[in-house]
C-alpha cells in the first residue's frame, strides 16, 4: 500500500461478555503501523479474548475494532490474507511434517510462491523439517506455529504468548525472529506475561488487568510515570544489615533469592545506606541499583503480581 495508514489497529470501547463474566470491559487503544505492541497481563486478564476479537476468531459483544482500516466484523475476507495469527495453545496435525504443514497453510492462502525453506530456517527448524508434528517438543511446535503465522507474508502479526513454555534460549531465539520481523516493517501484536519480553521487544505496552487497560505507553514511559524510586539490591547480607537499614527509615524486603531489596527515592539515599552499613561493620557480597521494572509498575497499578511463581521473574542476563 502506497500511503500506509498511521494505525494498523484501532479499538474503541470493546467489550466481550461470557454469560455473566465481563471478560473485556470497554477498552480502547490503537496500534501504530510498524510497531511492536505488547499486551501485558496476568492469567485471565482478557488478553486472548481481546486479541482473538481483533484477529477475528471471536466476535465482540460491543465496540468497534478496525484492522488495517477495516471493520473486523464486516471485512473478514479482505483482512484475513493480510494478517498472520499464532493462537494461544497452538496445535497442528499430528502426522504431518513441518514442511508439509507449512505447505498446507501456504496453499490455504493460495501462495504457491511461499518461501517454505526460508521460513523453516527463520525459526531454526531446518533439521526437523521432515519430522511429524507430534514428534516435536513443545518449544519446536511453538516455533512452527510462528512460521505458520508468517506463511502469507502478513502485514500484521498476532502472537498470543509466543514464548510461553519455551526454555530461555528458545525464548531469546523467538525474540530475535520478532525483532527481525519488526525490521521488515511488520506490525506485531504480542501478548505475554513476561515483563522482560515486553520491555525488550515492545514499542508500546498496554497493561491489562481484569478486562481493563490500566496503563499504556513505552516501557520507559510506564516506568517513568508510575514510579519515583530506585531499587537497591544487596546480596548475601549479614543479619544485622536489615536493622541498620530500618533505622534509616527504609523498608527492606527479602526477595526470593534471599537478597535484600530497598526502595529509595534519591541517589543520595543509596550512599547514605551504604555508609551506614560500612560504619556499623556490616558486610555484603555485591550490590545492584536499578530503576523499577514493569513488574513493579504492574504491582503498583493493580496490587496483584504478574506471576504466581517466582522462577519466571528471570533477570535480564
Amino acid at each position: 500500500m502506497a500511503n500506509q495508514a498511521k494505525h494498523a489497529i484501532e479499538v474503541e470501547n470493546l467489550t466481550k461478555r461470557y454469560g455473566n463474566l465481563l471478560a473485556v470491559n470497554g477498552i480502547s487503544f490503537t496500534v501504530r503501523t510498524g510497531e511492536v505492541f505488547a499486551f501485558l497481563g496476568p492469567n485471565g486478564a482478557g488478553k486472548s479474548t481481546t486479541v482473538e476479537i481483533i484477529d477475528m476468531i471471536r466476535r465482540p459483544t460491543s465496540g468497534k475494532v478496525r484492522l488495517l482500516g477495516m471493520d473486523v466484523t464486516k471485512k473478514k475476507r479482505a483482512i484475513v490474507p493480510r494478517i498472520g495469527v499464532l493462537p494461544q495453545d497452538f496445535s497442528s496435525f499430528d502426522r504431518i511434517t513441518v514442511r508439509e504443514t507449512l505447505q498446507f497453510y501456504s496453499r490455504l492462502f493460495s501462495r504457491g510462491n511461499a518461501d517454505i525453506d526460508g521460513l523453516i530456517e527463520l525459526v531454526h527448524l531446518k533439521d526437523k523439517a521432515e519430522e511429524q508434528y507430534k514428534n516435536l517438543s513443545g518449544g519446536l511446535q511453538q516455533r512452527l506455529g510462528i512460521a505458520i503465522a508468517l506463511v502469507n507474508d502478513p502485514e500484521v502479526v498476532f502472537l498470543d504468548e509466543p514464548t510461553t513454555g519455551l526454555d530461555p534460549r528458545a525464548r531469546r531465539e523467538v525474540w530475535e525472529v520478532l525483532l527481525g520481523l519488526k525490521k521488515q516493517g511488520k506490525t506485531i501484536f504480542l501478548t505475554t506475561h513476561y515483563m522482560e519480553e515486553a520491555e525488550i521487544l515492545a514499542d508500546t505496552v498496554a497493561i491489562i488487568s481484569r478486562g481493563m487497560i490500566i496503563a499504556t505507553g513505552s516501557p520507559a514511559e510506564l516506568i517513568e510515570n508510575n514510579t519515583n524510586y530506585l531499587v537497591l539490591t544487596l546480596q548475601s547480607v549479614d543479619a544485622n544489615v536489615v536493622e541498620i537499614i530500618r533505622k534509616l527509615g527504609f523498608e527492606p524486603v527479602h526477595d526470593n533469592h534471599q537478597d535484600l531489596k530497598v526502595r529509595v527515592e534519591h541517589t543520595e539515599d543509596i550512599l547514605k545506606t551504604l555508609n551506614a552499613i560500612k560504619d556499623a561493620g556490616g558486610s555484603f557480597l555485591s550490590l545492584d541499583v536499578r530503576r523499577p521494572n514493569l513488574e513493579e509498575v504492574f504491582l503498583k497499578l493493580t496490587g496483584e503480581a504478574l506471576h504466581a511463581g517466582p522462577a519466571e521473574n528471570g533477570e535480564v542476563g
Partner: protein
Amino acid sequence: MKLRVIRANLIVKLKTFYRERTAMFFTLAFPIILILVFGTIFLDRDKLSLDLYVQDLDHSQASARFVKTLQFNGNFKIIEVDPATDAREYAQKHKLNLILVIPKDFGILHDQRADNKTHDASVILRYIYDPSSTSVKTKMEYLNMEFAGMNQRMSGRPPFYRWEETSILNQKYRFIEFFIPGVIAMAVMIASLFGTVNMNTELLQKGIIRKLSTTPITRTDWILSNILYQFALAIISTIAMLLVSYWVFHVELHINGWLLGFILLDVFAFVGIGMILTRFVQEAQSAVAAANAIVFPMMFLSGSFFPIEMMPGFLQTFARVLPLYYINEGLRASMIFSDNLAALRYAAIIGAFAAVFFTLGITATKWEEGK
C-alpha cells in the same frame, strides 16, 4: 469454494489416514475380515451337501447300489456305520441326528419286486433320529423326496404331475451376495460417522479449527473436503471389499452407477450426523459413545447381516425408520436384483434423509468463536 484449498485439505487428510496404521486397518481390513468370516461360515448353506450316516445291515449288491444312488442323486455325503453296532446307541454316543438303517432283507425284497414276482413287496427303511435337532427334519424331508423319486422310477411309468420352479426374483442369489451390500453400507456408515466425529472433536479440542478460522479456508471448503475425503475412503474400501468377494467367493453382483450413488448418500447422511454429534457432544469420548449408540442398532436391526423379515414385527417396523435400512435395500435392489425402480425409491428416501441431516450438520458446524 476454492479447489486449491480443498485439495490441500484432502492431501493432509489422506496423508494422516495413511500414516495412522491402526485407523487404516480398521477402516479397510475390518469389513474384509467380516466378509471372509461370514462368507466361509455360510458357504455350506449355499452348497447344501449333507452328511448322511447309513447302516447297511444287508450288504447285498442291491443295497450297495441303493446307497450309491443316494450319494449321486441326493448329493449326500455317505458315512457308513458298522452293521455290528446298535444304531441307536451309536447315534447317541456320537451325537448324530440321523442314521438311515437299511434292513437285512433289502436285497431279497428288492429282487422280488424287480422280477415282478411279488407286486406288493416293500422294504422299510428306518430313520434313527434325534427329534431335538432342528436341522434333521430338513434332512429327512430331503430323503423322503429322494425315495419318492426312486419309487416312481421303479414303477416304470412316467409321472403325471411334474413341476417347474419360477423364482419371483430375477436371479437366484447366494447368502454371500446378500451379505456384501450390507457390509458395504455398514462399513461406509462407520467410516463416515466415526471419521467425522473423531476428526472434528480432535481438531476442535486441539484448537486447529481456531487457527484455520484465521486463514482463507471457509466452512464450505472445510466441509466439502471432509465429504470428498470420506467419499474417497468409501470408494477405496468398497473396491477392496468387492475384489475380495469376487476372488474368494466368485459372487455375481451388478456394479453400476447405483452403487456409487448409494455410497455417496451413505457418506452424506453419516457425515451429517457426525457433524451434528460433534456440535452437541463436545467431549471427544462422549461423542464417540454417542456415535456407537447410533451405529450398533443400525448394524443389527437394519438388515445388514440378515433379512429383516427374520425379526419380530415391531423390530421390522423399527428397522424402517433407520437410514441404513434404505441403503441396504437400495444396494441390494441394484446389485442383486437389478431392480432400478426399487433402487430409485430407496435412493429417494435416503436422499431426503441425507439432505436433511447434512444441512443440519452444516448449520451445526461451528467455525468462528473457536471455544
